[in-house]
């Protein structure tokens, strides 16, 4: 088994509230898996259970094949990075990073060597004697990372580590973390509510909603082939158009809306006449000239540097966005009447 981590049927409730509902998850060795979802969706609780800081009510958690049910956090082979760094304020950087090695009773010079190595890894070689309060947020987070990695744990857990940093710093550190991940080949379980961050960093993403995993897949899979409406709207920008199925054949539906007729793929068979919602990405929507597709009026054209975003109000009132790369001539001006359509392969229909 190459699985570093395996969760089976894990649940947790707080009183009457279900935080995590029977989830199954595996993390392969060396993989970067992100738990993505809005706050309260259960992703942090799941991470805490893997760390041992909270106990599941049902199910098993296995680290490297062995159940951790009776293992307290300090006996699990994990490293953890917290959102607010959790660096010990009364210890210098060296002592912070060396702390886990002290706990493992390594020799003093061995500790010194490994601490230097870890600080090199996160590109902070000279700051050993500083106190955490003397460091910037980004530096503190890097020290926290070094501290969590210095003893080479089997699994690295990260709880929204970049949430407290500003945008530029966040992007910088995302790359740093990826680099460290590659260099060390470590397995990472990452929690975030920022879907862009998840898409950038992960090998696979597990999307959480209300304690359940909606979909696990690579970023491309989640983006192009969302399996539920929640995933479609949470990951990336999506247009949602409501209508009724007219017919269905070979996994493709014909859908009637009050603005016109469109087609979309469907994961499961949908009965004729059933109400559906079609999810389609703005960059997959095209302006068409024939009398097909959906009728609408352009209400705004927004220039976003590399592309133009057209806000279109369909004749049934729905707002749609169309994204076109700059380069092609402007497709339509504000107030223009247009018709929109798309390839059925790039749109998904979900039961409403």
């Amino acid at each position, binding site marked *: 088994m190459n699985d570093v981590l395996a969760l089976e049927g894990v649940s947790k409730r707080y009183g009457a509230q279900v935080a995590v509902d029977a989830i199954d998850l595996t993390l392969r060795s060396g993989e970067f898996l992100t738990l993505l979802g809005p706050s309260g969706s259960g992703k942090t609780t799941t991470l805490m259970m893997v760390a041992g*800081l*909270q*106990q599941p009510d049902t199910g098993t958690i296995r680290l490297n094949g062995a159940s951790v*049910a009776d293992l*307290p*956090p300090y006996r699990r082979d994990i490293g953890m990075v917290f959102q607010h760094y959790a660096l010990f304020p009364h210890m210098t950087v060296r002592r912070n990073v060396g702390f886990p090695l002290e706990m493992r009773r390594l020799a003093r010079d061995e500790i010194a060597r490994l601490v230097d190595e870890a600080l090199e890894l996160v590109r902070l070689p000279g700051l050993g004697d500083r106190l955490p309060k003397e460091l910037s947020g980004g530096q503190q987070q890097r020290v926290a990372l070094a501290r969590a990695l210095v003893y080479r744990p089997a699994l690295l857990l990260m709880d929204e580590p970049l949430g407290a940093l500003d945008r530029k710093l966040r992007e910088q550190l995302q790359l740093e973390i990826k680099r460290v991940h590659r260099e060390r080949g470590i397995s990472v379980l990452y929690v975030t509510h920022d879907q862009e961050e998840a898409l950038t960093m992960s090998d696979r993403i597990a999307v959480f909603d209300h304690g359940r995993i909606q979909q696990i897949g690579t970023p491309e899979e989640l983006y192009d082939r969302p399996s539920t409406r929640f995933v479609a709207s949470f990951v990336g920008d999506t247009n949602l158009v409501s209508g009724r199925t007219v017919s269905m054949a070979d996994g493709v539906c014909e859908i009637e809306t009050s603005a016109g007729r469109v087609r979309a793929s469907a994961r499961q068979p949908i009965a004729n006449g059933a109400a559906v919602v079609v999810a389609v990405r703005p960059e997959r929507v095209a302006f068409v000239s024939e009398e097909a597709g959906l009728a609408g009026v352009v209400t705004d054209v927004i220039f976003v540097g590399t592309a133009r975003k057209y806000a279109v109000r369909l004749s049934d009132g729905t707002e749609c966005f169309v994204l076109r790369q700059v380069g092609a001539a402007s497709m339509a001006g504000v107030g223009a009447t247009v018709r929109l359509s798309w390839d059925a392969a790039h749109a998904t229909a979900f039961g409403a």
Partner: protein
Amino acid sequence: MKAVDGRIWLVLPAALVLAVAFLGPVGWLLARAFIFPEPGLQNFAVLWERPVYLKVIGNTLLISAVVTPVVVLLAFPVAHLMAHGSARLRRWLIFLVLVPFWTSLLVRAFATAILLQRHGVVNSLLVTLGLVDEPLPLLYNFGGLLAGCVQVLLPFVIFPLYSSMVRIDPAYMKAAATLGANPVRAFVRVYLPLTLPGLMTGGILVFISTLGYYVIPALLGGPRQQMISQMIQDQIATFGNWGMAGALSLVLLAVTGAMLLLLQLTVGLREVAR
């Protein structure tokens, strides 16, 4: 599946000592009211019927009720200066208030007594300044008691009040000014209500403390200022009447509890750490 649950046991030693050396004995004393010398409610009947007991209880409540506003009134300007004065002034004032706060009750009561003697400093000053012809009786009466209580209790009001005041965002007063309130109205309608938590905390603290006082009335008050605690001591030391002592303790505790409930309902028992 215990991760870090062993920690709950650490509260046991303290809880045990508390139960055995405090809750138990106090419970025992309060029980005496219903058991000594015979089971029943006689002690309370006596308490109710014999005027001397009700008089002392009423007296105690009255004294506390008078002392409280005096202390609060005197504390207010000091707290205000502390909160709004310069940082240097604040430090000195805090020190000024802390020093007596940390000095023992006995020493301070004794010191006040010295000052208020017939030939003590205050009287000498008054006579020298020609304000009176004869030295005034300032001790062993309500005046002495009041002086002592104020001395001891001022810090108990100054600190919570200061805490409250310091938390008032100056933006409120500025807003009041721009909205057309003159300083007096702004003070009464905006500032004062915002200091209410501190006022309530300090006031109730003073009231409760005064209720239970023994040393100050014994040292500085006269026979007409006898308070409940002195009576309890009397019952035990002079009469050996544990039943009555228990009954009086129960009454004292009940009033104290009622005041605390009032505090909880109005402010919430967030103890301000010293």
